[in-house]
Every structure is written in structure tokens, then in C-alpha cells.
């Protein structure tokens, strides 16, 4: 059942989803998704496995049909169209390259299905292969290529059709970390050059941070927060987002007057707290907390801590700090040669939680803890 209301729309929206609902048996995969994606945007769909992000992508591709809701692509109702009638292409997580075809045949498949032949076909295929730097492998079979090369073939096979929207379903998850990082950057450059709308599904928050202009963080079939990537990172709306996108220290306290919260760490100054006595949920990023042996004069929000554990990762140190009241704080410090780096386990320090870095979260309803993808 697809509702047929196609009302006024922003001409810049490439993709518009309204009230999307999808169930598999008893499992609700999508529970009312409203989403708009601009033309030429690199849009990240981020969430733990089972949150519905891949289902959402498959509904856009036409590989699943929504139980309810509207799917508009460039203002056209496509919810009822099967995959092969949609001007949308997908880069699959498994690549799904045709093993019995050469690279060139794989890339030319979509064009051939649309009746493109001969020299035009050959030229377009070669241009797409050159675009992803695998022109030299046109005559090879997919199994003769490395994982990264196969990934490029999958990308070329989708791009060559010049789709209205390109869907990418965790396309880099099968690659090793170094190659993945390299391809993330190349993917961004490619997207910017082509001006094509990319929708990128990932469970890897770092990948989303590197690639996406805007993201939607999903959880249990709903969108938890949507916005520009830096906004979502700097101002997470809920504890789930604060912990899923990057790391966070979560605190709870009772408001004790304007800009004052009584927490287990003591009274903290937090911006934007009204004079009331309500329960307040707070988050602070580990890299925003400052450490010092001596403490600071005249700075609020200083907490005495002891270094309980330390992980040296080269570029930064990750400290696990124990606060006097039995609470813990995670802090990361960049590896500089300043004196506020290189504390030892067992050392007693002062931690500074800058008021503007303490983010007030919306109280979220309790829900199952997020499961990480393998």
C-alpha cells in the first residue's frame, strides 16, 4: 500500500521518504521513516546492524517493497516500481559481480539491458573503468582481481548508468583498513566531481564521518537524529547518538539553578540549563576534557581524578580516569610534546570539563543496547 499524495516539494530534494514502514514477520524493520536527501549530497545512513538501514536502501533500490509510506525520487512516485524500472543503482556489500563475465561485460551489463550497443557501449564502459582507475583490467574476470579492484568494478558498474541516485551498501566493509581509508577519500572526490547523489549505508561511524555531508543515525527502525555530520557529532541529541557516533562520557544529574547541574562528579557548570530541579542527561567527548597535574586557576568544572588505565595508540593516549565518587571518565589526549601529555597510571590529576563541551541530551526511552556489526 503506497499512499498517492504527491504534494508540494522542494525542487532540490532528490529523494523523499514519508512514513516508510516495513515489517518482516514480527520484526519491524522500518518504523515510520521520514527523510529528505538533497541533490548532489553525500548522505550517510548510519546505525548498528539490524537498525533497518539496509532495508531502507533496498526499498530505495526496489529490491524490497515498503508495507506503507511514500518513496519519491526526483519528485516521482517510485514505490510501486520494481528494481529494473528505477533509475537507481546499487553498489552491493558483496559486490555481486557476475563471475562468468569479464570486467567490461560486468560494467556494460546495465547499458546493454537498456539497449546501448556497439561503439557507444564500449566507450562508456571504458570511460567508467578509467574513472575508477581499472581500465587495464577490462578483459579480466572478477576472480582475477583483488578485493579493492573488485570494489571499483562494482562502483563502475553502477556509475556507468548515470543513475539519479547511487546507493552504496557498506561497499568498503570487506577491505582492509588502509585501503578502506584510501577509498573513502576517493569516493568523496568522485561524488563531488560527478555531483551525483550518493546514499551510503555504514555501521562504521568513522567511515560516515569521513565521507558524508549529512547523516541519519538509525536505531531500531527509526531515525534517531539527522543533520550535517559535524552538527550531529558536536550536538548529539541522544545518548545513543553520542555513543554511536564517536565516543562519549555520559553523565546524569539534577539541575540546581541556572547553568548548574549536580552530578556525581560534583556541581558542574553547564550552559543552557534553566533554573529548575529536573533530571539532566549530559555527554562530553573524551577529546574535549583537559588534564593537568596542577589544575587551573579560576576555571570551573575541575574534577580530581586518578589515572586507572592508559592505552597508547601512537597519535593519542586514551586514559581511563577514576573519579573520587567511583565514576569513570574516558579522555583522549593528542600526542604532543607538551607537559599535559604522558601521564602515568596511578597519577593523580585534575580534569577540566569545559562548560561549552558539556552537551545536554534528550532523555531517550530505554531500548536494547546497540549491537556492533562484526
Amino acid at each position: 500500500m503506497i499512499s498517492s499524495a504527491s504534494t508540494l516539494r522542494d525542487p532540490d530534494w532528490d529523494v523523499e521518504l514519508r512514513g516508510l514502514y516495513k515489517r518482516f514477520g514480527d520484526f519491524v524493520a522500518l518504523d515510520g521513516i521520514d527523510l529528505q536527501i538533497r541533490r548532489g549530497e553525500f548522505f550517510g545512513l548510519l546505525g548498528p546492524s539490524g537498525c533497518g538501514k539496509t532495508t531502507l536502501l533496498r526499498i530505495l533500490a526496489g529490491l524490497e517493497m515498503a508495507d506503507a509510506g511514500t518513496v519519491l525520487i526526483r519528485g516521482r512516485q517510485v514505490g510501486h516500481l520494481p528494481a529494473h524500472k528505477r533509475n537507481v543503482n546499487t553498489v552491493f556489500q558483496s559486490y555481486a559481480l557476475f563471475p562468468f563475465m569479464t570486467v567490461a561485460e560486468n560494467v556494460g551489463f546495465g547499458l546493454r539491458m537498456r539497449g546501448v550497443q556497439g561503439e557507444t557501449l564500449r566507450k562508456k564502459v571504458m570511460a567508467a573503468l578509467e574513472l575508477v582507475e581499472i581500465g587495464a583490467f577490462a578483459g579480466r574476470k572478477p576472480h582475477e582481481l583483488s578485493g579493492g579492484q573488485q570494489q571499483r568494478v562494482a562502483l563502475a558498474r553502477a556509475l556507468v548508468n548515470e543513475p539519479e541516485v547511487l546507493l552504496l551498501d557498506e561497499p568498503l566493509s570487506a577491505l582492509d583498513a588502509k585501503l578502506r581509508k584510501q577509498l573513502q577519500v576517493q569516493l568523496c572526490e568522485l561524488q563531488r566531481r560527478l555531483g551525483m547523489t550518493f546514499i551510503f549505508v555504514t555501521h562504521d561511524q568513522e567511515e560516515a564521518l569521513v565521507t558524508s555531508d549529512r547523516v541519519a543515525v538509525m536505531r531500531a527502525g527509526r531515525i534517531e537524529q539527522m543533520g550535517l555530520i559535524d552538527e550531529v557529532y558536536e550536538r548529539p541529541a541522544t545518548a545513543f547518538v553520542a555513543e554511536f557516533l564517536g565516543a562519549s562520557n555520559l553523565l546524569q544529574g539534577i539541575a540546581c539553578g541556572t547553568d548548574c547541574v549536580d552530578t556525581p562528579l560534583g556541581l558542574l557548570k553547564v550552559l543552557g540549563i534553566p533554573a529548575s530541579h529536573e533530571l539532566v542527561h549530559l555527554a562530553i567527548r573524551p577529546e574535549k576534557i583537559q588534564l593537568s597535574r596542577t589544575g587551573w586557576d579560576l576555571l570551573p568544572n575541575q574534577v580530581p581524578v586518578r589515572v586507572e588505565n592508559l592505552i597508547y595508540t601512537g597519535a593519542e593516549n586514551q586514559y581511563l580516569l577514576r573519579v573520587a565518587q567511583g565514576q569513570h571518565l574516558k579522555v583522549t589526549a593528542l600526542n604532543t610534546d607538551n607537559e599535559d601529555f604522558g601521564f602515568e597510571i596511578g597519577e593523580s590529576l585534575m580534569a577540566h570539563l569545559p562548560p561549552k563541551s558539556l552537551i545536554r541530551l534528550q532523555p531517550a526511552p530505554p531500548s536494547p543496547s546497540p549491537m556492533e556489526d562484526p
Partner: protein
Amino acid sequence: MLEAESPVTEKTAPTEPSGNPGPGLQRSQRAISPRGGWDRRQIRFGEMLTPLGELGRSLIFAGPGVLWVMFFLVLPGLLLVVYSFLSRGDFGQIQLPLTLENYVRILGYGPLGWTPIYWQILGRSLLVAAVTTLFCVLLAYPLAFFIAAHPPRQRDLLLTLVVVPFWTNLVIRTYAWMLVLGPEGWPARLAAWIGWIPPQTALYPSWLAVYLGMVYTFLPYMVLPLYTAVERIDWRLAEAARDLYANGWQVFLRVLFPQTLPGLASGLILVGIPAFGMFVVPDLLGGSKTLLIGNVIQLQFGSSLDYPFGAALSFLVTGLTLGLIYAYSRYVGTGSLEDLV
């Protein structure tokens, strides 16, 4: 817009092992070279084996089977070749002198002048084998997909049903077809009712009966390998094809069908070759007009008591079959028969 030159190309060097020659290549090549450097003879089957130890082990494990094949297949086969150059005595005994007469007779030269009879029978046998195989393919494809579409438990049941006929002897099953196609059976009555055959006659002997019996006999040999291939189909490829604008028929033809080719190749061999030499079914369900090469050979070793001529025919059929398989395997592109069967 895709034709614009990529700035990505200029900026980055490929790092995959088989990339363009570039700064990244040498490093990667070094990384994979140790794999090629291993001495493969030293570690086999996860153990350190000397060439001598390996030979001993092969003899122990493969010896009995090899001996069995030698004594019961290769030697009798060679004996057959020898027979084919000997003569038939007046009472059916095999005797000297050595002669090429048996082969000359197959070519059609007999005491009564030249006759193409054996050529015709050979051609007819090939045709019957081909038609039988074709119908088996047409019937087996939907069946294999049908079975594979079921949950595992039901699949086992359906596969068992396909195999059930094997539990009974072929001759008995063919007699059962004679009952089914007999004058009292409903197929014959139906045929009589629409005026196709006179009332109270059987539907055999006829080509229809022969083909019914042949396709019935060989269908499982096509279904089983095809099912194995269908079960292994990577359906994600079908989704990818749909995503790339292929409609249902194109998805089957271009993405699903190629994945079933290994099964089809086995099925063609498993059905085509035995169908070529079949004699039980045409013997019981067909008449003299449906005499196939298998029946002729059977006659030579049976009522005609002409072992040398039968041996010559057998040798010819075997040679022809091997030749066809060779040509087929070259065409299919596999190097060994192992890949086919």
C-alpha cells in the same frame, strides 16, 4: 559526465598487487612473492612426505580400485577389441582367421551388396539420444528450480521422490509402462476416444512409447546434477541484475542460467551417453522400426551368437562416444572429464 578525466587517476597510485605499473607495485609484489616460493612437493595433505612415501601411500589407497578396474573393465575391453578382428564359426564359436570383415560389414558391405542399415541405426540412435536429452533438459530445469525453492526438509523429500524409481529394476519399470500404455490403460482409451488409435489397442510399440520410456528413465540423471547447481546459485547476482535493469527473463538467461552450466554439463553427459546405448526401453516399448544400436549389439551377443560382430559394434560405439565426449569437453572448455561428471 563520466567521460571527464579523473583527477583521482593523477593523484593516487594503485596499491593492489596487480595494479598498473606505478610506485605501489614493487612493494606489493614483494609482499606476495613468498607464496610462490614454497616447495610444493614437501607439504602435501598437511604432512611432510618424501616422493617415495607418497608413492607407497598411493599404491595402498588406490591399488584395490585400480586392480578392480584393470581386471573387470580394461582387460575385458581389450578382449573385445581382439574378438572384433576374429571370425564367427558355424556354431557361434569365436575362431581364427583374423579379419576386418566385421568392420566392413558395419560399413554396409555384405553378401547381398551394400546397405546403409547400420548407418541408419547409428544415426537413429544418436537422434533418439539427442531428443531424449533435450526433453530431459526442458523438464529438469523447472523441476530443479521448484525443488530448490522449498525449505531444506521438503527438498530432501522431493529429491527422494525423484530417486525412488531407481529402487526398482529398469526392466520391471519398463514393463510397468507397458501396463500403463496398454489397451486397458486410460492413456490408450483417451487416445482411442479422440480417434487417434483404434479401440482396444495399446499405445506401444511406438516412438511415443519409446520416448516416454526414455525420458522417464533418464530424467533423474538430469534433475540431480541440475538441482545441485541450482541450489548453489548466488541469488545476490540476480538482485544485482535486477538493479541493472534486467527483467525476469533476462535475469534467468544472463545470470541464473550461466550459474547452472556445470550441472547442465554433467546432466548432458549422464543422460546423453547411456541414452545412446539404451536397449531395454526400445526393445520393450518400440518395435523393429525403433531398433537402436544398443539392440543390435544385444542381438549379436544374444540370439545371433555373433560375438566378433558384436565386439566390433561395441568398439565402434565406445570409440564414437569417447570422441563425442572429447569434442564436448573441448567445446565446454574443461580440461578433464572429472569436471564434467
